[in-house]
């Protein structure tokens, strides 16, 4: 009788420990997903902060590119004023597009490209664009492992009990931006 009780107690103990372990793993993964999401926001904010400086430096050299500048400023203010995720991601997509157009136009201004100040800004902008896409990439990685954990046995039971919900992957809204990487396949 006593041994049976001990066996039951041990089994129960192991079971509870396993539940605690899985629950903690789920919480950790969810926090990683949230952290990755906030990383994207940090980098987007950096991009917003860089733009006024960039335009100020480039303006003097690029007299005939008023439309390019306007597209950038407009997209920037839209992105900064966005109230929900869908709106913001659309505006950010437009901003990214406007900036990559700007970088192409810059090729036609050798004087500007010789400006040290501008070169430094250009490196920062390139890096920020990279950081944004790497942050998105990392977010999707984290979402993948979180979703896997939620769907797989036995963690799916505990996820269901405590209300862990699958997250959506980040997908690029603007069609033009989505097409960019495909050029390498041609």
């Amino acid at each position, binding site marked *: 009788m006593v041994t049976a009780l001990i066996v039951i107690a041990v089994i129960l103990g192991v079971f509870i420990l396993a539940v605690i372990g899985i629950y903690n793993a789920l919480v950790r993964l969810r926090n990683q997903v949230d952290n990755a999401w906030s990383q994207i926001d940090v980098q987007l904010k950096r991009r917003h902060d860089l733009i006024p400086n960039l335009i100020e430096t480039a303006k003097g050299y690029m007299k005939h590119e008023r439309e390019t500048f306007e597209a950038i400023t407009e997209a920037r203010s839209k992105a900064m004023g966005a109230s929900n995720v869908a709106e913001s991601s659309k505006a950010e997509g437009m901003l990214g597009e406007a900036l990559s157009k700007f970088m192409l136009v810059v090729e036609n201004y050798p004087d500007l490209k010789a400006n040290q100040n501008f070169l430094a800004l250009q490196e920062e902008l390139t890096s920020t664009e990279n950081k944004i896409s790497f942050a998105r*990439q990392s977010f999707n990685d984290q979402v993948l492992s979180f979703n896997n954990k939620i769907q797989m046995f036995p963690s799916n039971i505990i996820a269901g009990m405590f209300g862990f919900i699958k997250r959506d992957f980040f997908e690029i809204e603007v069609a033009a931006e989505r097409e960019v990487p495909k050029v390498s396949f041609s």
Partner: protein
Amino acid sequence: MWELIRANKRNSIFLMAVMALVLLALGFVIGMVFIGPEGGLFGVMIATVIWLVLTLISFSSGDQILLAASKAQPVTHDVHPQLFNIVEEMKIAAGLPRMPKVYIINDPAPNAFATGRNPETASVAVTAGLLARLNRDELQGVVAHEISHILHRDILFVTLAGIMLGSIVLLSQVFLRGMFYGSMMGSRRRYSSGSGGGGGAQIIMLVIAIAAAILAPIFAYLLYFALSRRREYLADAGAARLTRYPEGLASALEKIAGDPSPQLATVNKVTAPMYIANPFKRKGQRKLSDLTSTHPPISERIKILRNMSQGASFKEYSKAYTAVTHASSVIPAGAVGLKEDVELRQADAQATKQERREKQIHQVGDIMRRVNQFVFLTCVCGLKLKVPPNFKGDKVKCPRCRKVLDLPRKSQ
């Protein structure tokens, strides 16, 4: 990515266990010889103490000594914004909890390494020669390789395995030297003190001990080097996955391999596995050095990376690895099985300005050749062969890697 880290951890624990067994067995046998049949346990204790002391030394001093020994200078964003930005980009891509410290080594030989036992206290160091030669994409590939080492906990592994290896080597050296001097001084005492009549067993024990003392370090070395090479492949796979651009690392490795400058001034055998390319310049004798090298042949690493044409996932790397080496996968099965949608990305626009112009000329040329019914073939080494329509025969040799390729039937 996490599946890979877990598999790595399992492999490391297994390797450590094997090495620990070798160390303890060696201690046991040596103890039996020196003290007699009861000395086995004492020998095991001695082996454990040696291991403990070495562990304490290397964990208390650790990476700071390595960085100081290689004369690495810490840098901030102002000193080299591009390098700093690239490290930060890779930190974000890898999801590291903290920004690694960035160091530059003032040495013309192009190389790089990472240290730090866990992702929280990691450092990345690159040489000035590397910064001078690589463009942005290539530098990104190299940094991604180093960050992958950090992410895969390879530094911890190398430290722990190095300690174990060091203990085995030390113990067997002490024993062999002790035997040598012992026999010179003709200490009969040891043999007579053993249990009477156990002379025959004692001599057999002695032979076993000598054989073990000679073979154990060799075995441990080969194990260590084989796993170190495997980790290089894994870090390459990780770099391709982080950057989504295997060509960056491939062309960086090509530049590093083809560099004529002398080998790094501050390097030793212990730190070698942490560098992106073997810091010791090879002199001939390729086959033997392949077994005892900490790094896989660089040409092979380039070929594998160039063979990843469909994507940048671990699965794709594994496929390319099999195509090039004809061996089964280097990537643990858990990571290969992942259904990942990992597309390749485009080269960085600024970094490849000159190259882009050349590429455009190439593309125009290719279009013209296609019009003229040239046959296009891609070799496993990544070289694109363009075979003219009047070429006779159905086999062609790749001019870069000398592999014979079958020519597809012309559709006419």
